[in-house]
C-alpha cells in the first residue's frame, strides 16, 4: 500500500512538470507584452524600457526563462502583481478562503443531496420518484451555472427581493444578524454551484447502485433474511459508493474552477474573480499563479482519488 502511494506520487511529478510547461508555453507563445503599457507612456523612453526588459530577463531564451519560472513556481514564489505591486502569494492567501468556503459548502450540499436521492432512485427504479429525480437531474446538468445564476438573481433578488445578489466580504453587522447576513449572501452562489454538481453526482450514484442491487451478494443478503434497510444501507450502498467516492474526489477541482463563473455572477471576491480581473488587467504573474494552483489541485485530487480507490476496494492489486 505504502509503495503504491509512493509510486503514484512519483508519477504525479512528471505530470506536474508537463502541465507547467503547457502553461508556460501558452504564455510564451502569446502575442501580448507585459510591458505594453509602458510603451504607451511618453515619459518612459525606449532605452529605459529596454533596460527594464533586460533586468526582468524577458529577452532570455525560452528554456532559461522556463527553468527560472518553474523553480520559483514550485517554491510557491509567484512574484509580484503588475497591478497591486504586492506579492502574488498575498493576493492568493486573501482570496483562497472565500473560494474554499463557497465551493466547499456547495460540494458538501451536492453530496448531501445526491447520495440519498440517487440511492432511493435506484431502489425504486422506474417509480414516480425515480422518474421525477432523473428528469430533474437531467435538467440540472443541462443548465449551465451562469444561466441558473442569472435566473436565480432575476427571481430571488429582483422579483421577490429575498436574497442579495452581491456577495460582500466586508460585512460589518455584529452578532446574530451579522451571521445571518453572511449565510444569506452565500445561499445563491452555493446553491447554484451545488445544483449542477448534485445533478451529475446523483446520476452516478443511481447507476452505481443499480449495478450492485442486482448482484448475487445482495440476493444472498436478502435470502438470509436481513431487513431491507440493512441490505441496501449496509451491503449494496457500501460497494456502490466506492466508484462514487472516486468521482467525488475527481470532480472537486472542477467545482473549484467552476466557481470562476459563480464568483463572477455574484461578485464573490474569490480566486475565480481574481483570475478574471487579472486577465483583464494583463496581470501575468497573477494569471500564472492561479492557473498553476488550479493545476496542482487537479493533480492532487487525481492522486487522492486513486489512493482512496485502492484503500476502499480490496480487489485492486498494487503489483
Amino acid at each position: 500500500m505504502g509503495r503504491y502511494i509512493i509510486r503514484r506520487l512519483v508519477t504525479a511529478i512528471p505530470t506536474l512538470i508537463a502541465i507547467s510547461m503547457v502553461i508556460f508555453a501558452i504564455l510564451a507563445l502569446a502575442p501580448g507584452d507585459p510591458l505594453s503599457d509602458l510603451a504607451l507612456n511618453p515619459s518612459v523612453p525606449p532605452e529605459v524600457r529596454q533596460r527594464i526588459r533586460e533586468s526582468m530577463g524577458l529577452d532570455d531564451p525560452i528554456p532559461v526563462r522556463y527553468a527560472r519560472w518553474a523553480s520559483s513556481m514550485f517554491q510557491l514564489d509567484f512574484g509580484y502583481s503588475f497591478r497591486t505591486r504586492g506579492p502574488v502569494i498575498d493576493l492568493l492567501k486573501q482570496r483562497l478562503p472565500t473560494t474554499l468556503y463557497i465551493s466547499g459548502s456547495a460540494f458538501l450540499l451536492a453530496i448531501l443531496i445526491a447520495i440519498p436521492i440517487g440511492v432511493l432512485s435506484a431502489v425504486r427504479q422506474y417509480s414516480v420518484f425515480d422518474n421525477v429525480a432523473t428528469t430533474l437531474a437531467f435538467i440540472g446538468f443541462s443548465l449551465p451555472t451562469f444561466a441558473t445564476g442569472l435566473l436565480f438573481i432575476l427571481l430571488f433578488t429582483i422579483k421577490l427581493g429575498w436574497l442579495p445578489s452581491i456577495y460582500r466580504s466586508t460585512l460589518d453587522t455584529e452578532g446574530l444578524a451579522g451571521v445571518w447576513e453572511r449565510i444569506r449572501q452565500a445561499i445563491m452562489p452555493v446553491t447554484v454551484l451545488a445544483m449542477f454538481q448534485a445533478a451529475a453526482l446523483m446520476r452516478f450514484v443511481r447507476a452505481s447502485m443499480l449495478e450492485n442491487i442486482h448482484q448475487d451478494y445482495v440476493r444472498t443478503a436478502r435470502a438470509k433474511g436481513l431487513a431491507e434497510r440493512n441490505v441496501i444501507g449496509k451491503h449494496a450502498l457500501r460497494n456502490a459508493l466506492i466508484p462514487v467516492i472516486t468521482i467525488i474526489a475527481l470532480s472537486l477541482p472542477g467545482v473549484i474552477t467552476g466557481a470562476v463563473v459563480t464568483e463572477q455572477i455574484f461578485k464573490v471576491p474569490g480566486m475565480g474573480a481574481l483570475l478574471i480581473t487579472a486577465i483583464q488587467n494583463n496581470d501575468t504573474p497573477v494569471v500564472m499563479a492561479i492557473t498553476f494552483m488550479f493545476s496542482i489541485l487537479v493533480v492532487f485530487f487525481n492522486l487522492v482519488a486513486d489512493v482512496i480507490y485502492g484503500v476502499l476496494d480490496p480487489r485492486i492489486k498494487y503489483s
Partner: protein
Amino acid sequence: MADVSDAQVQSSGAAALEMGRLASKKSRSLWSDAWHQFRKHTLAVGGVVVLTLLIVATLLGPIVWPENMKTIDFSKSTLGVSLSHPMGTDDLGRDLFARVLWGGRISLAVGVTAMLVAILFGTLIGALSGFFGGFTDSALMRLTDMFISLPTLPLLLLAMYLFRDSLIGKFGQTLGPFLLLVFLIGITNWMPVARLVRASFLSLKEKEFIEAANCIGANRSSIIFKHMLPNAMGPVIVAATLAVGSAIISESTLSFLGLGFPPDVPTWGQLLNTSINFMEIAPHMVIFPALMIFLAVLSINYVGDGLRDALDPRKTTG
C-alpha cells in the same frame, strides 16, 4: 439418393419455408435495430424534434425574419415582448429574436465543429494506441492523462485572452474567435473519446473476425478503417452527441465571461453577458438566451441518452 423418403423432403421443405419466413419478416442491420430501440425513447425523439426545429430556425430564421439584428434604434431600447418583437429588444433597441436566431447559428456551429475536432483527434489517438499497443500505447496514454489533468476552464480563459485579438486581426470578428474556440474546446475534450476507442480496439484486436481478416491478407489500413473502426463507433457516437452539448456550454461560458466572441457578434452566451447590466429593467434579455442554451443542451443530452440505450447491444430487444 433416389430413395429419399417423403417425410425427409417434407421436413426440409418446412425448414426452408421457415427460413424464408424469417428472412422476409425483417432483415435487421445493427442500425435499423438501433433505430427501433431509439424510437422507444420518447424524450430522445422529442430531443431530435426540438433540435431539428432549432437548427432549421437558426438557419432559415435570419433570412425569413424581417427585423434586422443590427439596426440600432434608441427609441425602442429594452422593449418588452410584443408581436413585432417576440423576444423584446435589447439596450440598443435591436430586435432580440433576430439576435437570438443569429447567435444560435454561431453557438450551434461552434458546438458541432468543436465536437468534430475532439472526435477526430480522440479517435486517431485512441485507434493508434489500441492498435499498435506497446510503446505507442503507453506514450499516447501518458499524453491523454496529462490532458485530463489540465485545469480546462482557466486554461481556456488564458488562451482566449492571449490569442483572441491577434486572430480577430487576421480572420475577422466572427471567424477569428470561432477558429480559436473550436480548436481550444476540441483540444481539451478529446480524451474520453480516445479512451473509449482504445478500449474498443484492444478488445476487437483479439476477436476472430479480425484474425480472419488478417488471414485473408487484408492490409493494416483496411483492417483499421473497414473492420475495427465501424465496430468501435457505437460509444463514440454517444460521446460525440454529448460533446456537442458540453462544447455549447463551454462556448457560452467563455462568451458570458467576456472572453469568447466580441460584443458585436451575438451568441447565446454573449447575449447573456450584455444582459447582466439590464437585468432589472429588461429581464427578457436574460430569459430568452438562457432558455435557448437550456433547450439546445437538454435536447442534445436526451438524444445522447437515447443513442446510448439504442447502441448498447446489451439492451437490444428482439
